[in-house]
């Protein structure tokens, strides 16, 4: 039982636990907090997978920016502190069954694939450097497109969320 296993086990537990709590809490703010835990645990899993840069990005963007963004959204739109109610029962059960079946099928699919025995070897390499090399040679155009995308999203969000000009 190596340390990797233990680490994986704990992190996986935290991840899944955070997600389950997110679903089962009643107040939205608690939900966001649970989700932040999940994000952090996923970052840990990334580190286990020797993807440090992705892990840091995850922490910065997800548990940093997006969680705070969601909190802003909640605070601005909550018109009462009431709980989140759920849909009526019959459809919920149908969805539960659907999701379970989906899970079982994909699980079986996962188990039946013959995965390769030789994983990639990232230990000797510098993760950031590798990513940088690939990003600016093979994937430079998507990189530039993503920056345009972010600009567009920024402008769009501002316009959408702005108050109407006449309304004062």
């Amino acid at each position, binding site marked *: 039982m*190596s340390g990797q296993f233990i680490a*994986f086990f704990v992190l*996986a537990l935290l*991840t*899944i636990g955070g*997600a389950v709590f*997110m*679903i089962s809490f009643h107040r*939205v703010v608690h*939900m*966001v907090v649970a*989700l932040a835990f*999940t994000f952090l645990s*996923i970052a840990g*899993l990334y580190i286990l*997978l020797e*993807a440090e*840069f*992705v892990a840091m990005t*995850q922490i910065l*963007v*997800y548990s940093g*920016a997006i969680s705070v*963004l*969601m909190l802003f*959204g*909640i605070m*601005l*739109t*909550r*018109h009462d502190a009431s709980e*989140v109610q*759920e*849909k009526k029962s019959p459809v*919920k059960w149908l*969805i539960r069954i659907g*999701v379970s079946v989906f*899970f079982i099928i994909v*699980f079986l699919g*996962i188990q039946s694939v013959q*995965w*390769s025995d030789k994983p*990639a070897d*990232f230990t000797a390499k510098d*993760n950031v450097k*590798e990513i940088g090399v*690939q*990003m600016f040679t093979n*994937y430079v155009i*998507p990189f530039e497109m*993503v920056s345009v*995308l*972010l600009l567009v*999203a*920024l402008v*769009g*969000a501002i316009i*959408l*969320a702005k*108050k109407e000009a006449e309304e004062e």
Partner: protein
Amino acid sequence: MSVPINSYLLVALILFCIGLYGALTKRNAVVVLLSIELMLNAVNLNLVAFAKYGLFPHISGQIFSLFTITVAAAEAAVGLAILISLYRNRNTVQVDEMDLMKR
């Protein structure tokens, strides 16, 4: 003996299913957005796992996941902007009450 890839994929699957359930069931629009973020995270985990242990392991998996994170962030921002503007119009964030498509 390292952690087999199946485990990572399983965790991702569980996260995905939970996120799906939340997206289809919850009434508060913010919670729906949260669930969508969860689903995207599950996908990211898959990608990074395949980058290391998949059939053709390559760093492209991590690069792909970076892009996914970016797009997810942009989508969250725009989604919340829409939500706020809707809230201003209808004074509610319950998804059930946004049903103009029916009539």
